[in-house]
């Protein structure tokens, strides 16, 4: 294995959606890479393809969705080339996932201690007795108070934040190299959100786990991530260091996103009366416009934007952008 190689590398990924004989590219030309231990943000609106990109990374796409082209490499190994059994050995052990809804992501009929313990039994061949002890340790690690007692609780006895802590404990139980977090805090209230995020970052830093953070919460991504990729209608429009994206967004879509973030006191400072918006709606997968997919909503669109999709171009300070008129 190449030591210098990134942990996860996605190269020119296309995900096809089969629909009554037609194939639509739900995701197209997506490339990014995540070094070991780094937190990478993938942002975009609902339906832009970020969640199915995550599923593709997990090797969990199901018909009608399928990988159409491109490669996904985890630690230098190509995920598509692995047999199902190899994928199952990878999941939970090298790569784990946290979901948006902690309410439904736990089995309601099994105690949380048992659900954590199952990971040790499944992946580390531990006995049940030993696994139960490790599960209590794992609960302590995610700072669940009185873990011995909590381990016997069922999911419905826990609050949303506690459940998400349990999910984190399960996902990190076997020290995976990559944690895919699909909007892990969207269903939680704001105070709990920041606790969970801090916890996640701290634990991942401790274990050297990289995070693929999927979110539509720009503030969250700005706070957590080193690098950020912005997705629009199935394509990456911009991929740069998080700091740069928010300080000086390059793609018109990102500029729109950043401008539409509410800021405390911004109204007085800028003399605006209402929150900025990006005009128009995201096109449906079946009707992506030709050329640049953002051109119908873009203020600076020209003729070439309407015809030829822009290539990824490098920008100053590292990163890429897909736009003819980028800043």
């Amino acid at each position, binding site marked *: 294995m190449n030591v210098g190689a990134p942990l996860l590398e996605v190269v020119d990924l296309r995900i096809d959606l089969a629909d009554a004989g037609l194939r639509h590219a739900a995701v197209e030309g997506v490339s990014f890479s995540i070094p070991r231990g780094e937190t990478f943000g993938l942002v975009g609106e609902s339906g832009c393809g970020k969640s199915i990109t995550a599923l593709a990374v997990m090797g969990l796409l199901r018909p009608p969705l399928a990988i159409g082209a491109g490669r996904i490499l985890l630690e230098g190994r190509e995920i598509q080339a692995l047999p199902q059994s190899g994928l199952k050995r990878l*999941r*939970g052990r090298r790569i784990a996932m946290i979901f948006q809804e902690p309410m439904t992501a*736990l*089995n309601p009929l099994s105690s949380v201690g048992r659900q954590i313990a199952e990971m040790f039994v*499944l992946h580390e061949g531990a006995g049940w007795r030993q696994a139960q002890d490790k599960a209590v340790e794992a609960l302590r690690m995610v700072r669940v108070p009185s873990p011995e007692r909590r381990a016997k609780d069922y999911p419905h006895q826990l609050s949303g934040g506690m459940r998400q802590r349990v999910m984190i404990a*399960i996902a990190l139980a076997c020290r995976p190299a990559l944690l895919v977090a699909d909007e892990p805090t969207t269903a939680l209230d704001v105070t709990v959100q920041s606790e969970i995020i801090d916890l996640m970052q701290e634990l991942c830093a401790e274990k050297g786990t990289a995070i693929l953070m999927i979110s539509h919460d720009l503030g969250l991504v700005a706070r957590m991530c080193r690098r950020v990729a912005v997705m629009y209608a199935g394509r990456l429009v911009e991929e740069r260091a998080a700091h740069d994206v928010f300080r000086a967004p390059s793609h018109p879509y990102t500029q729109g996103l950043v401008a539409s973030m509410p800021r405390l006191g911004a109204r007085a400072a800028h003399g605006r009366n209402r929150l900025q918006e990006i005009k128009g709606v995201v096109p449906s997968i079946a009707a992506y416009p030709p050329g640049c997919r953002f051109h119908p909503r873009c203020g600076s669109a020209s003729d070439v934007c309407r015809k030829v999709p822009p290539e990824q171009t490098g920008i100053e300070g590292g990163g890429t952008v897909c736009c003819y008129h980028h800043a």
Partner: protein
Amino acid sequence: MRLRVNLVMGGALFALAVGAAVLAPLIATHHPFLDANLMNSELPPGSEYLLGTDKQGRDIYSRIVWGAQISLMVGVVSQLINTVIGTMLGLTGGYWGGKWDDFVSGLTNLMLSIPSLIFALAIIAVLGRGLMSLLIALGLTNWSFTCRIARASALSLKSQGYVQAAKTLGYSDMRIMLTQLLPNMVGPIIVIGTLGMGGAILAEAALSFLGLGVQPPWPSWGSMLSDARDAIITGQVWIPLFPGLAIFFTVLGLNLLGDGLRDVLDPQSKVRSA
């Protein structure tokens, strides 16, 4: 939790039948067939013969108590076979989908379209009469409802978050089916199983009535009814009445029990009581 009338009544009736079956050697006043005495044939209920005697002078009360063993065993064992077959087929079909699911659904529809009693008759015709072939025949012909329930549950459960989560955690299909799907569908399956037990007892009665079930002289409720055919016409009402009532109350009890269990195992009521 509120006491449920149907659960309590059904449980009591079923417990009565089970109690009679288990305690048969102790509570029977006569031997079910060795004490036959033609001198005492067709006696009405009285102090010596609690529920009267049949044509061969056998004590009907003792025969009902002993018959409970066979009727209940047929009900429980055959329904157990049905439940296992139906759950396995439905669970795997619903979870895996594809060709296997088409096959399972086709088989289920086929089974539903054949009257199960006729099918059981055919199986007994092949295997020969006797308790064993009765169990097999009833066990192979009534799994389609369980299968449908299990398949429908598997279909809806497999899109649940925790099943998806289990996949991302590297669970094998078997493990997902056994630890994530099965425990969550066990409620409706128990309900269907209990209701089906009543059906199996009735089917046993019907097959025994036709002379294809338990072989004489051992009593089963169905064969007792069958033997009492003439008495229905000649007026010795007690001979068919009591085995008939035994069937009636046991099946009623099982249906009430199934109903009660459905109420208790309903996730909605579970949330309320939690």
